Structure formats: C-alpha cells, structure tokens
C-alpha cells in the first residue's frame, strides 16, 4: 500500500464532497419539479422544503383526463412505436447489404447515405416545401417516414454483422439457402444486441420528437407530447390559474384547501415525459459505448 500525504487525504475528501454537491446539483431540478408535480398545498412564504406540503396525484390525474394533454401523449406513444419498429426493420435490412464488402457499388451506398448528406442539404425551407408538396403537413407520416432510414444506424449495425462469424452463413449457403433466408434466419437472430441498442436510440429520439412537430404539425390534436409541454411551460402562470380553478371546480374539489397552478401541471408533464427514459435507462447505459461510436465511425 502506498503512503498518502496529508495533502492527498485532504484532496480526496474534498473531491468526494465536490461530487456529492455535484450530484445534488444534477438532481435538484428534477427533484424540485417532482415536488411541484405532487404538491397542491398552499405554499407558505419561503417554504424551501422539497417534501410536498399536501401530497396529491391531482396533476397526474389531469394529465390522464384532460384531452388536450393525453392526446399528445398518445400521439407520441404512437409515433415512437411505429417509428422505432419501422426504422429498425429498414436499417437492419439495409445494413446487411452494406456488410457485403465485395458487392459492386458498396462504396457508392456509403457516399449516398452518409457522406454526401453530411456535406449538403436542402435546409429548412426547401424540405418544408417538399413536405407540403407531398401533402405531409399535419400528418404523422412527416414525423416518422423521413426519420426512418439512418446511415449512421446502418453503419453501426453493419459493423456488428461483420463481427458475426462467416462460417454460419456459409454453411447455410452450402445447404442452398438464399440471401434473404440467410439474413432472416441466421444473421438477424444473432444481431439482437445491436438491434436492442438501435431500438433504444431510435426510441428515445422518436419519443423526443419536437422540432419536426413544431414545423409541420398544425392542429393541437396532433401535437407531440414535447410540443404540448412547451406550450404549457410558456403559459404565464397567473393567467392560467383561473382557468385551472374552473377545471378543478368541475372536478368537484374544495378550492379553499388547495393551491393549484399550471406550473404543477407542466411539472407533472415533465415527469411523465422523463419516466419512459428513466425506465429504459439501465438498458441504455449498457449500450453507451455503442452510442458514442455512432458519431465516430467512418464508413
């Protein structure tokens, strides 16, 4: 064991305390919003406790009951499920072609799918005009179809295919199996780990769909959850309270005992938006390394 000087001991303790404070700083915004989402108590002046004064699931109930809130939630669930599964299918199949090193035109695919799109693009307005011409405005297709294929995901999947021993596919070919069969029967079942990783990354990004929805979706019925959330966040707190109280009276609650605000509702929405991410987080963590590689592998 190495001897440690006093200076080092002080440093070690300071370092541990630093990370403790750091962790508090990381958690504070989330804990504060969690508290707000669960608290309907009338806040006294300067109540700095993070424990709800009057615990209630009222705001979460509102998320479930208010159509203007649960509709965007269901929309996001829908595009996440459809988008992730279709994206997985398209990229997994396409990546198989990319994994064939001796296939004529293989280099062209890398240029077409990765390198040229990295250099050139139409930009916001020409893309918007295309979507308009396709009749995609205000349709969920605009949030799913353009985001389905991804050159980067395909490269990541391809690299995994490369690591699968060739002998398995070869023996199937000798038995007379065609490429489709080789792919679906042998390669795809063996590629589960990378497909799980891609499903998680694609899932998170579909769940967080925001910019495209802001640009292309018009009717509030078709908002995604983050778009609705932004609307709630930007509402002026006091302006909304009256509307909120009317809603609560309709729900049959005694307004003298509780204090509600749109802050509480948007807090609950933020928590709801984070829950799926936190649920898949342990699995995401397993694939961190792969995720970092997405940005750094060359074709």
């Amino acid at each position, binding site marked *: 064991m190495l001897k440690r000087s006093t200076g080092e001991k002080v*440093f*070690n303790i300071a*370092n541990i305390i630093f*990370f403790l404070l*750091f*962790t508090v*700083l*990381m958690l*504070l*915004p*989330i804990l*504060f*919003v969690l508290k707000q989402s669960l608290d309907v108590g009338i*806040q006294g002046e*300067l*109540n*700095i406790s993070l424990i709800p004064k009057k615990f209630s699931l009222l705001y979460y109930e509102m998320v479930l009951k208010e159509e203007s809130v649960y509709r965007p939630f269901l929309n996001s669930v829908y595009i996440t499920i459809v988008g992730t599964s279709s994206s997985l299918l*398209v*990229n997994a*199949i*396409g990546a198989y072609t990319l994994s*064939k090193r001796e296939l004529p035109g293989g280099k062209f*695919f890398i240029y077409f799918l990765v390198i040229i*799109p*990295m*250099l*050139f*693009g*139409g*930009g916001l*307005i*020409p893309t*918007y*005009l*295309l979507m308009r011409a396709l009749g995609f405005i205000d349709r969920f297709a605009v949030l799913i179809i353009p985001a389905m*294929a991804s050159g980067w995901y*395909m490269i990541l999947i391809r690299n995994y295919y490369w690591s699968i021993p060739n002998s398995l596919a070869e023996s199937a070919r000798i038995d007379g199996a*065609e*490429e489709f069969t080789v792919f679906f029967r042998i390669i795809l079942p063996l590629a589960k780990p990378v497909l799980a990783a891609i499903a998680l990354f694609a899932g*998170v990004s579909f769940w*967080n769909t925001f*910019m495209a929805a*802001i640009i292309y979706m018009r009717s509030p019925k078709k908002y995604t959850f*983050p*778009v609705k*959330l*932004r609307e709630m*966040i*930007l509402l002026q*707190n006091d302006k909304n309270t009256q509307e909120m109280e009317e809603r609560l009276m309709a729900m049959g609650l005694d307004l003298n005992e509780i204090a509600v605000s749109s*802050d509480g509702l*948007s*807090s609950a929405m*933020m928590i709801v*938006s984070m829950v799926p*991410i936190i649920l898949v*987080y342990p699995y995401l*963590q397993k694939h*961190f390394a792969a995720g970092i590689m997405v940005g750094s592998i*060359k074709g």
Partner: protein
Amino acid sequence: MDTATTRRSYKRNQKKILTRTNIMLYLMILPPLVLYYIFRYVPMPGIMIGFQQYGLSGFKYWVGFRNFNVAFSTFFFWEAFRNSWVFVAFGYLFVTPSPIIFALLMNEIRIKWYKKSVQTISTLPHFITWVVIAGLFIQLLSPSTGYVNLLIRFFGGQPIFFMSNAALFPWLFTFMRIWKNVGYSSIIYLAALSGIDPQLYEAAVIDGASRIKQVWHITLPGIRNTILVLVVLSFSSVLAGMFEPIFVLKNPMNRSTAEVLDTYIYSIGIIQGKFNIATAVGLFKALISMFLLFLANFLSKRVTEDGRSIL
C-alpha cells in the same frame, strides 16, 4: 462441358453484377436509398430559392444575391449571427472542458459504488429532451415559485428574474448545456484514462512525483489525443442543435441574446413566409458549416494516430 469452360463461365458469373444474390442484396438496401433520395436529395436544388423572388405561390423571377443583401442588411440577422457564435465560443470555453475536468476528478475517486452512482446520475440528462430540460430550469429559476429564488429570498436576498435577463442568458444556457452533457461526454475521457498504463504511475511514484505532477506528466498527455480528436470532430457541428433549446428558452425579454440562426430562419421562413430570405440565410449557414467540416476533416488527418479523416 470440360473443366476449362466451367471455370470460364464461373469467372464470368463472378464478374456479373446482376446475379440473383446481388439483386436480392440491392433490393434490401432499396428502401433506405429511396427514403434518402426523397427526403435528403430532392430538397437539395431547393437552395436555388435563395436566389429567387419566391412568394407563397412559388417561383417568380431570379434576383441574384438580392436576398442575401436583404438579410445582411437586417439588424435581427446580425443579432442571431452574433449570438450563434457567442454560444459557440462559450461552448469551447466552458462546455468542452467540463467533461475533461469531470473525468480527471472522477478518476481520483477510489470508492467504486460512489463513482458508479455519480456517473449514473450525471449521464441521465443526456437522454432527456431539451424541451424538458428547458422546462426544468424555467421552473427552477422562476422569480415567484422557483427553488433558486426561494433560496435567495430565504437568505434575505431579492429575487432575480433569471429568464428575462438578457445579459444573463448566455451564462444560463451554457450552464444548462454543461448540466445536460457533462456526464455523458466524460464517458469517453474516462475510458481513455483507464487505458493509461498503471506502470507509468508506479514508476512516477518511485521517482517521487506528487499527485499533481502525475496528472500533469502522465494523465494529461495520456488523453491528449482523445481531447484533440473530439475537439476537431466537434468543429463540424458547432452551429447545429441549437434550435430546440433556444426555441423553448427564448422569450421577448431575452430574445436579443438568445435568438440563433436556426430559430431566426424558422421565424422568417415558416412564420413570416419569407421563403427566399430564409433559404438565403440557411444557405449562408450551410456554407459556414461545410467550411468547418472540411477544416475538421483536414485537421483530423493530423490529430488521429492513423491519419484517419472524417470524410
């Protein structure tokens, strides 16, 4: 058929591109190709709108560089341009070094479970969308109910109107960027740190090097390359990814220091319907990004060990 002809026909088959197998393989990559063609390539010629008089009804006539001149003579364009670069500068000054410092300090923590818990918690925000992060901070910093102002008042101070203070905004935004990404970005540095040969440290200890000296002479040189590569790679995307956070955080009070090119293009294009001006600004931004990508590509050949480039 003798063996020679068999061999010849086999060879010919090998050269043939459209074998049954290859056709199957091409069919398998067809969907991504079509999707990329429609959604990435079809809009490309649309940049010509930047050189046209283009109304809601479509093309009217060519105007040369007039749209650019109109944009360049607008105060709000330069404001957005300046803010974009302020955020880039703040990014390199504070956001880029933060995971390096985080990893260096984290590397000194010897308690395994502690290390792991801190890492798990600090990596989570990377996967949370900017809308929620912005929302969290807007709530946290609210002058009336936000926790930070509660604390300030608890200790007898006056509440600060964080989100409506234009001078404060670049700092707040930088803080949020660090908060969101420090844990995730540090993973790659921690991996590089764990790859440093422990014998180097042992030798240094025998030579009587202090902890600080070990960091300076062994640890930092050990991750120097990782830092260089990541910094160079980041050149290619400096202006990207600012739409979401700014779109949520921007308000009439802080707009003057918050608006960036991406949100500016959105408001003049989609909201005001000036497609030609918005396309011109977008094209201008794309040219800068392309220049930076080529620069990153050129530099990456120098900083990577095997002379690998991005493109």
